[in-house]
């Protein structure tokens, strides 16, 4: 699997997106904080966090005895640059071409 595959796979699950949203609201959380209010076992949440870590969307860091989870926005940035920007540019340039073409046509 490529890096992009891992990111898309990780994002293709509502629980994992919810976990990212929770970290977006407040970063640097423990597993206990992240699982609170989720109708899921601790093991289930750990599995989801593992997928997010494999995709590098979540980075963990030790602070004393606690393992804290941080949202890493870089993979989303890379997806944005490689995919979203590319298609947006093409659409914009297609419109620009159309404008040029229409304006050049004799009335």
């Amino acid at each position, binding site marked *: 699997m490529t890096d992009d595959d891992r990111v898309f796979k990780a994002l293709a699950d509502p629980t994992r997106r919810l976990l990212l949203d929770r970290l*977006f609201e407040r970063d640097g959380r423990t597993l206990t904080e992240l699982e609170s209010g989720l109708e899921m076992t601790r093991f289930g949440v750990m599995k989801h966090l593992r997928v997010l870590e494999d995709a*590098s969307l979540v*980075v963990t860091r030790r602070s004393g005895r606690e393992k804290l989870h941080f949202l*890493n*926005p*870089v993979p989303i*940035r890379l997806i*944005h640059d490689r995919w*979203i920007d590319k298609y947006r540019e093409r659409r914009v340039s297609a419109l620009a071409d159309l404008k040029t073409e229409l304006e050049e046509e004799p009335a």
Partner: protein
Amino acid sequence: MSTTADTTVTTQVYRVYIKATPQAIWDAITDPAWNQRFGYPGISEYDLRPGGVFRAAAPPEMAQAMGMPEEVADGQVVEADPPRRLVQTWRFLFDPELAAEGFTRLTWDIEEDDCGVTRLTVTHELEDAPKTAAAVASVARIYEGGGGWALTLSDLKTLLETGSPMTGEQG
């Protein structure tokens, strides 16, 4: 809310995998010939020894156009262990409110992974610096990609892997 959460919430962590050697990444960060080619316009200069000066300058014409000082950030080198670890302080100077927040602590960890891939982790400790934190996170646009460190590190990856940056330089 626990005290742990209160203190750690101010730290931001960014990670990127780059197909390059640790030395190439170290040079890209610390050598002005490289660091002027990615991220925000301008160059960064490092005196790579504990207590050494760090300064980042914007291109003069850009600083003038935006009505900001040429010196956009400064700090000190805390630890330089090439090509593995650079710890420095960081203070923005381009805006008086940001400058007033003072120095924050920035750590660059460079670790070799498998297959010629190197893992770069940037940890920015931003205690008592909410405006600086917002500036480096570009929080409002995070799901669109954001700016800040995410932009800078993505650009660094593009530069080292393709030979040209995704922003700035043309051709």
